[in-house]
């Protein structure tokens, strides 16, 4: 029979034996082993970097490539297809960097907006009462996420947009929006003298919506009465600026695109490169987001809906009070990584010549200056920073939606 004492004795004997073993064979001591591995790794990395840097310097000297960032102040000497700020070919590489950056942000924002829209529409469509719509969601997701993005970009650019009619035969919508092989044209509002009044009213209306929400919540807490916040907000945002515009005598002129010669001028132009890239990015990423939304909604047990129903809650309230808050906790982290992929994938602009950061900098600037290391790293860092910002915002959003839990 073992008693406790004997067990304790056995244990201590064992302990002693094992510590003896380690003191005899030091290489069996896990700490020493760990140290050894780490030192080996450091040595290996050091050797690697020293060789690589040495080789690189030699190579650059041999081919006469300059180093450093002096090139940023030099004139780029090439034009870009599209720029959100003024740009001429005599401007510097630094400016072209900014141009590219803004174009990347533009296509990313458009892409994220529409990808989210498609993703949520098709993700919710999985749960439609209509069989055809459910199947449509499945078909959308399975088709678009299983075809390489590059192929989709090319498809929209070379097969769809380039088969649009020429400027003279443009497709038009109410003689205001035109679509042709050169791009999409739509009218622009140009503000007159009193336009600021309208913009101010719009800003006030947006502020008013926040106030309205707070007020409605307070009122419900006190009186229990509910207020149709959504409808009221929409009405406020739409009608207040309209009223203001009417009172100030509509201080806007509309700049319609008009056909002059072989092309349209005026209004806002969306070049086909931007269109193709935005469509492909949103459709592709939208398919992944739809999956995320579906997973989020499916992660909620049926019992939640049943319990809410048996309390007498209406279906729309069950959605907004029970389903959405819980589903968001699954969806938001997935959205975060999808948004980051979208930004990284926007570099495919290079394939069709949309002047995003990657294309103008790692594409053209690198080619002209030969300074591969500087241009590539400057560009990579921007993508890192953009993704960190996305991650930060999404984490904030996530903690806001999961604040209600723990």
């Amino acid at each position, binding site marked *: 029979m073992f008693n406790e004492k004997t067990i304790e004795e056995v244990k201590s004997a064992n302990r002693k034996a094992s510590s003896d073993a380690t003191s005899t064979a030091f290489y069996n001591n*896990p700490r020493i082993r*760990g140290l050894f*591995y*780490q030192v080996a*790794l*450091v040595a290996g*990395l050091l050797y690697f970097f020293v*060789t*690589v840097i040495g*080789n*690189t310097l*030699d*190579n*650059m000297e*041999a081919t006469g490539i300059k180093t450093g960032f002096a090139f940023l102040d030099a004139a780029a000497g090439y034009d870009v297809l599209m720029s959100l700020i003024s740009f001429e070919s005599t401007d510097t590489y630094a400016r072209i960097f900014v141009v590219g950056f803004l174009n990347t942000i533009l296509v990313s924002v458009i892409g994220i907006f529409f990808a989210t829209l498609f993703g949520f529409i098709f993700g919710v469509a999985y749960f439609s*009462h*209509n*069989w*055809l*719509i459910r199947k*449509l969601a499945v078909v959308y997701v*399975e*088709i678009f996420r*299983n*075809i*390489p*993005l*590059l*192929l989709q970009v*090319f*498809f929209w650019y*070379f*097969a769809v947009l*380039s*088969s649009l009619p020429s400027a003279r035969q443009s497709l038009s919508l109410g003689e205001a929006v035109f679509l042709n092989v050169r791009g999409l044209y739509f009218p622009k509002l140009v503000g007159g003298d009193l336009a600021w009044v309208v913009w101010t009213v719009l800003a006030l209306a947006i502020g008013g919506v926040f106030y309205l929400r707070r007020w409605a919540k307070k009122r419900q807490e006190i009186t229990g009465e509910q207020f149709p916040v959504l409808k009221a907000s929409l009405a406020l945002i739409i009608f207040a600026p309209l009223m203001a515009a009417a009172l100030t005598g509509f201080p806007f002129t509309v700049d319609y695109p008009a056909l002059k010669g072989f092309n349209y001028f005026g209004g806002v132009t969306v070049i086909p490169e931007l269109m193709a890239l935005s469509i492909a990015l949103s459709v592709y990423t939208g398919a992944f987001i739809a999956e995320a939304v579906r997973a989020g909604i499916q992660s909620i047990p049926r019992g939640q809906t049943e319990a809410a129903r048996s309390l007498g809650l209406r279906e729309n309230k069950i959605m907004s009070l029970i389903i959405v808050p819980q589903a968001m906790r699954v969806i938001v982290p997935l959205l975060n990584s999808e948004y980051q992929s979208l930004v*990284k*994938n926007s*570099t*495919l602009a*290079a*394939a069709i010549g949309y002047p995003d950061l*990657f294309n103008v900098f*790692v594409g053209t600037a*690198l080619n002209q200056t030969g300074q*591969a*290391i500087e241009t*590539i790293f400057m*560009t*990579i860092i921007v*993508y*890192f920073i953009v*993704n960190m910002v996305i991650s930060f915002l999404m984490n904030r959003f996530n903690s806001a939606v999961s604040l209600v839990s723990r």
Partner: protein
Amino acid sequence: MKEFQPSSPRSAPVKSVGLIAWLRDNLFSSIPNAVVTIAFISFLAYYIPLLIDWAFLSANFKGETEAACVNDGACWVFVNAWSYQFFYGTYPPEEVWRINLTIVLLILVIIGSFTLPKSIRLKTSIAAWLLLPVVGIALLDGRLLGLEMVSTDLWGGFSLNVFMATASIVVAFPFSFLWALGRRSDMPFIRSVSVTFIEFFRGVPVLSLFFMGSVMLPLFFAEGTNVDKLIRVWLVLIFFMSGYMAEVFRGGVQAVPKGQYEAADSIGLGYWQKIMLIILPQVIKISMPNILATFVMLFKNTTFLLIIGIPEVVQTLQTALSNSYWLGGHALEGYLFVFLVFWGSCFGMSLLASRIERTMNTDKRD
């Protein structure tokens, strides 16, 4: 005492079962639903015949040149005429058996890793997978086997996409497992190096990695060393893939119950014995669906190689589309064909992944 006589079940009222009930519940459950259904069906009824007509009824199948495309429909002659290039690039036709043999070997290895008897499966398939790139490269290049050399400039087409993706994941596999272990290691330096590596390769756009491979990497090698472009790209893909796979494996390692480690420790296994004999097999099994998903991503991303001028299938298609004998506008046919090829393979792998996941879930229940 009364005896309980179960009443015989009646069949459900017709309006609640069968086709009519299904139609009502799924297509016409409410007025808006019915409107959507009718709109949808009329849309399909209008476009599907047009599509069928374009793709089949008035399509052109026979012939060699563009001139053979006389009907209004699709010009499949284009796809037909270029199909060799789409699959094999510019690989010499008399040597094409080598590509085919490599593909057959690949298929055999895949089948083997799912069907071999359990007792030898893991070891044999790991060995086969590691051997595969060596044998494949030897075959395709030819020099090692005393065959005529085929320069990598001539490799291309869809087979190149398949080879690049497979060869990368195979080599990335062991590395990524090490990175995953490194990330979970107690040794601070090893851990931070692993984290930096993984986050770097996951964080940057793949395209910038390809540019690094094509313009920066040559600077890193000693002067005069000329490393083949495909090999440089291969290296890049391996790094890229191991960053992503490391995260997959980390998830897998975390999913192995703690009891497994304790059990392994308690029978006195050393660290590497524990990892190789107990943990790795379980991690591979748990991670299989995610490995496949990552592979699908890698496979789709091999098309990006076009941007640095590697003649993979999309590049081949672009070349074909701008060929001066085929300027009749066959973009739609070409893209549809490549769509189908990619979609088939990627969708197949997704299906396989979800099947594995399902069987894994049922395994858990027993």
